[in-house]
């Protein structure tokens, strides 16, 4: 039976409550920001006295008014809640305003007097590299002897590729509502992927203990990593204002504000040198990855690390050196975004392979296939982890057939020979994505399961529902484990007072971690119920031998596998347990076994397992306008034994299309001062309904259970994002057709129509010369 998204009926009828929909008293105030107009400046002086007199304005606060610590950085404490002596990016918060209306706040803003002294700013990644503006020391991962191998190899190539950032564009902008309680209590309704961290930061900023702060998150209107740490900021601001005014305060960023001031996917610059033989086997790769961190650390080191750990993607490279350097710039601090550095990491090696194929005049799929990780050998990653349960060959074989790759390659060639101003491109790319937080301690989760005497179940767990269907899967797991109907299980809003000290819902790990925690809690309750069942069954039918080990939970009933005719209803057994004074509430706690990573050595076992996928994408470009169509995409993705096919397919499709945006239309443009030019959907273009593949075949790999996870499933949130790299490679293929595949296309990422048309011209001009 198909299980629909647990909130679906609410979504379609407008009953799903998001934070901005919560009904609050008339006492509510809205919080607004006064932000920096400079990428880098000293704050010389300011005066808020006039502004504070504005009608309808209840408070204007500067850093001097903060009751606790002026810091909201998640790992390194380098992000002030409100700027003090200087500002380090355009859009940095300096003052907070609590007002009844936006008009009042705007009026007050005009009356704020502040003087800056502008300082030199680093507004691009390249400037940062030139000026040695690094956030921390570089990191390194190496296998084999790269330098030596590069000297000995037959062919080498080198170059660099610039990868742009990406705005999350969750439909629901950052928002938090804080309601003060008695004493120092504060309840925050926060749109955050990390309620526990939001709680911690509010506590620090208010200077109170965590037990005073309750963070509740019902659902997010999209997040994609953009609310892993960035949700903390609005929460801190709302909390400070609510604490000061002793009234409920909501801070909701408007779209342009959100796009201007929050962190995005890290732009990268990749410098590469690669050595390969005439067969196309890659023998050595030397990579330098530069990540544009923005002004503060945030999650940059983890993102960079994941990029480094995915720099070889699905390929065995015997000699590989990967250097990662975090570059500090005067831009908003970049952050998590689906794939978390993985996509940027993979672009390097995929580009290398693309170039190798062109140099050798071979089909790129052939080169990719040759270099895939092996099953029995050639299966050690640069960081020393063995690639186990490798699904790459299964995927390749099935997908080459189902996508009719070989035939379509010929069709594409024929089409290109016949058309001067329209070209097609085709590419197949694999994904191997490591599952686990690479910061080992984060791999833990908790759950609290309550049984009520009517047999209904209330499930609390540490994960956040942001559309990925986590709550639905948790509900399914609880129902399956209890053997009851799904509607007997309700999943509560995520709440720090129910399950404390949780990890963010990120790294695709939500189901793996929380699912196990739920199961563990359910198992505890089942053990208690089984004890009661043995007693009750024996009372029903004397003389039979009932033991707890034989008790089965199935179809809303409890029985012994030995005497399956004799059943007690689930509700009855719960009620009986209550009368027997058994606890009907249990917590579950899970931590992933065995994961570790040594940063100084660059070696370890950072991942519990790998998820795999493969995609074939065909595109058509208009050589004269640079506009493109995705004609067809065939995807085969490995979700283990899927917990919910429809939800998993939804993740694959959604991730792929989001990836399409990253590689094609989602370009961030800045002026020299560091102003983001496209800060609204007017100029920032995520894919629309007509941008998806005209033929879109998405399948999950069958018959490949994951041995060690909850119900043999696999994480599916992030890995399919990188399947869209096939579209970028297909675009390169199409552009390169302009030069008859003899010349290297100069194509940026994202390959917008602007870059495509310029790249095509370059090739046309070179052909003419």
């Amino acid at each position, binding site marked *: 039976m198909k299980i629909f998204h647990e909130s679906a009926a609410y979504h*379609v009828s407008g009953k799903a409550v998001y934070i901005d929909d919560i009904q609050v008293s008339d006492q509510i105030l809205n919080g607004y920001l006064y932000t920096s107009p400079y990428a880098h400046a000293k704050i010389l002086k300011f005066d808020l006295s006039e502004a504070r007199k504005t009608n309808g304005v209840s408070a204007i606060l500067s850093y001097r008014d903060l009751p606790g610590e002026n810091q909201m950085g998640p790992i390194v404490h380098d992000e002030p809640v409100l700027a003090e002596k200087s500002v380090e990016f355009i859009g940095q918060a300096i003052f907070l305003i609590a007002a009844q209306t936006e008009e009042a706040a705007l009026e007050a803003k005009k009356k704020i007097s502040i003087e800056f002294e502008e300082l030199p700013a680093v507004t691009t990644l390249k400037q940062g590299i030139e000026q040695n503006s690094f956030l921390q020391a570089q990191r390194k991962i190496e296998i084999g002897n790269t330098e030596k191998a590069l000297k000995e190899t037959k062919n080498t190539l080198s170059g660099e590729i610039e990868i742009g950032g990406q705005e999350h564009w969750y439909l*629901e902008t950052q928002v938090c509502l804080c309601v003060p309680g008695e004493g120092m209590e504060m309840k925050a309704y926060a749109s955050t992927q990390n309620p526990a961290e939001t709680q911690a930061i509010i506590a620090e900023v208010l200077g109170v203990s965590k037990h005073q702060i309750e963070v509740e998150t019902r*659902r997010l209107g999209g997040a994609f990593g953009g609310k892993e740490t960035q949700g903390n900021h609005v929460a801190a601001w709302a909390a400070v204002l609510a604490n000061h005014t002793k009234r409920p305060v909501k801070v909701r960023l408007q779209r342009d504000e959100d796009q201007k001031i929050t962190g995005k996917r890290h732009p990268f610059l990749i410098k590469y040198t690669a050595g390969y033989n005439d067969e196309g086997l890659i023998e050595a790769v030397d990579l330098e990855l530069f990540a544009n961190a923005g002004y503060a650390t945030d999650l940059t080191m983890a993102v960079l690390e994941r990029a480094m750990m995915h720099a070889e993607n699905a390929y065995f490279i015997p000699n590989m050196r990967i250097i990662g350097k975090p570059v500090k710039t005067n831009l908003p601090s970049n952050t998590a975004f689906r794939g978390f550095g993985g996509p940027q990491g993979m672009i390097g090696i995929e580009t290398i392979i693309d170039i190798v194929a062109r140099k050798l005049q071979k089909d790129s799929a052939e080169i990719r296939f040759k270099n895939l990780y092996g099953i029995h050998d050639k299966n050690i990653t640069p960081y020393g982890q063995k690639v186990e349960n490798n699904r790459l060959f299964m995927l390749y074989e099935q997908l080459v057939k189902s996508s009719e790759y070989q035939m379509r390659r010929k069709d594409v060639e024929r089409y290109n020979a016949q058309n001067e101003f329209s070209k097609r491109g085709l590419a197949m790319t694999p994904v191997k994505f490591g599952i686990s937080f690479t910061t080992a301690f984060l791999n833990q989760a908790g759950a609290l399961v309550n049984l009520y005497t009517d047999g209904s179940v209330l499930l609390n767990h540490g994960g956040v529902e942001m*559309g990925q*269907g986590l709550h639905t899967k948790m509900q399914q797991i609880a129902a399956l484990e209890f053997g009851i109907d799904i509607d007997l299980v309700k999943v509560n809003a995520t709440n720090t007072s129910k399950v404390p000290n949780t990890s963010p819902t990120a790294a695709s790990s939500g189901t793996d971690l929380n699912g196990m925690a739920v199961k563990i809690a359910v198992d505890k309750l089942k053990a208690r119920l089984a004890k009661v069942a043995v007693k009750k069954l024996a009372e029903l039918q004397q003389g039979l031998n009932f033991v707890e080990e034989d008790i089965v939970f199935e179809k809303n009933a409890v029985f012994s596998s030995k005497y399956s005719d004799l059943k007690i209803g689930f509700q009855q057994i719960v009620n009986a347990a209550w009368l027997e004074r058994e606890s009907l509430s249990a917590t579950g706690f899970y931590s992933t076994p065995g994961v570790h990573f040594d940063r100084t050595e660059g070696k370890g076992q950072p991942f519990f397992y790998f998820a795999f996928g493969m995609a074939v994408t065909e595109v058509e470009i208009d050589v004269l*306008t640079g506009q493109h169509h995705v004609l067809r995409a065939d995807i085969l993705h490995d979700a283990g034994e899927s917990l919910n096919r429809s939800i998993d397919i939804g993740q694959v499709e959604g991730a792929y299309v989001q990836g399409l945006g990253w590689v094609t239309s989602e*370009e961030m443009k800045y002026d020299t001062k560091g102003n983001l030019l496209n800060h*609204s959907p007017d100029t920032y273009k995520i894919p*629309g309904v007509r941008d998806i593949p005209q033929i879109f075949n998405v399948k999950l790999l069958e018959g490949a259970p994951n041995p060690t996870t909850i119900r043999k499933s696999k994480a599916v949130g992030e890995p399919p994002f990188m399947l869209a790299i096939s579209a970028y490679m297909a675009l390169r293929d199409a552009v390169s057709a302009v030069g008859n595949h003899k010349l290297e296309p100069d194509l940026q990422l994202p390959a917008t129509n602007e870059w495509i048309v310029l790249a095509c011209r370059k090739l046309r001009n070179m052909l003419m010369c």
Partner: protein
Amino acid sequence: MNHEILKTSEIRFLLGEQEVNIDFSVSNYKPTTTLLQYLRSLPDRKSVKEGCAEGDCGACTVVFAEIKGNALKYKAVNSCIVFLASVHGKQILTVEDLGKGKHLHPIQEAMVEEDAGQCGFCTPGFTMSIFGLYKNNNEPEKSDIETALSGNLCRCTGYRPILDAAERACIYKGMDKFTGKEHQIFQQLTEIKSNKEILFLKTEQNQYYLPFSLSDLLHLKKENPHALLAGGTSDIALRVTKKKENLPLIIDISQLDELKTISKNDNIMFFGAGCSLEDVRIACEKEFPSLFSILSVFGSLPVRNNATISGNIGSASPISDTLPVLMALDASLEIQNIHGKREQKIEDFIVGYRKTTLSSDEIITRIKIPFQDKNNILKSYKVSKRRDLDISTVNAGFMLNINNRGLVESIKLVYGGMAAFTKRATQTEKSLLNKEWCRENVENALKNIQNDFSPISDARAGAEARQLLAENLLLKFWNETRI
């Protein structure tokens, strides 16, 4: 006209089945409060979401039912770029209206069953866009569904399940709980609209006029020369939502049925200034395919449903999508003030960056497009980053006439996005006149484009790409019309 008699500061409309009166002299709303802000201020209309407040995401989509001729017509619109004052005489529907007791509407059911919502934030908007389709098209093809969803962004799903849900829902051929009630709604709206006296909505900071006849409109414009005209408000509403301006004085022309007619004689097709771009699009498909094709990639369906043709011309934006092709078609405007009419070619009407020849007491009343000489070849082009719901980087309208000697008899190459206003590439045109329409000549001619224009770099594209695109569009035009 005497202001004393303009007392009504009240508008009337239906919200679901409920009639609502808003008296701006006492309410907290302004006439320029957006419909989105108004709906979100109500306790039971929270389904209507704000994703952008600029018409670019569809999270705020609602459906209007309104009287058109003698029928009730449904259309999806972006409530974030509609002023509350302009909903007078309409029925507003949101997802809260769709279900019946515990039962979901067929569209809602299909959305649930296809897992068409993930985070769900976009879902009400999509549902209403599909509802607009459902009520208008009983057998939609895939492209109709895509058009219906062209104004909605979803960041989670990748759209496939939403397309499937739309297709699945439409098997009911538009039948639903609203079908039986249309007559009654029609009557109620007719009664509201029976008042033809100017509505004058006044608050401390705003004056907003809603006239119902052309003569009233012309009088009002004469008396209030500084009043801003509001058509579909898709341009001016952004001044409120984005630039945070207060628009103190507005004359809204959207209630004038007189300005919404489309007619033709042997030589000319006439479009009322107040016609929505979608109405124009549908009406011009056969007669002016070049206009039709540019309108098909203009904004999104919800934007076109409300935005007017005169608004696109009147805003005189350098990247207006209709201007190049209208100029290529040699279209002209009928312009009126209280004293009479004048006519002017659109080419002469636009005189600078957002500058026209319109005087402060004038309004555009009709757009006149002449039927073309059968030898005229017309094409329109729009280059943008994204296919739907994007503003042009460069756009163009081209007209070519080749005489019986095989030479270029006349040619018009009109470009948008290349200068401060929509302009012809006169030197390039000249270099092609009386020449053979062959690749060599075209390639030589396009070198002149750099003399015709010096484009700028902005958030959409760099100057280099613009220059190249302008050249390439001419080559493309040649390629598509080569003999």
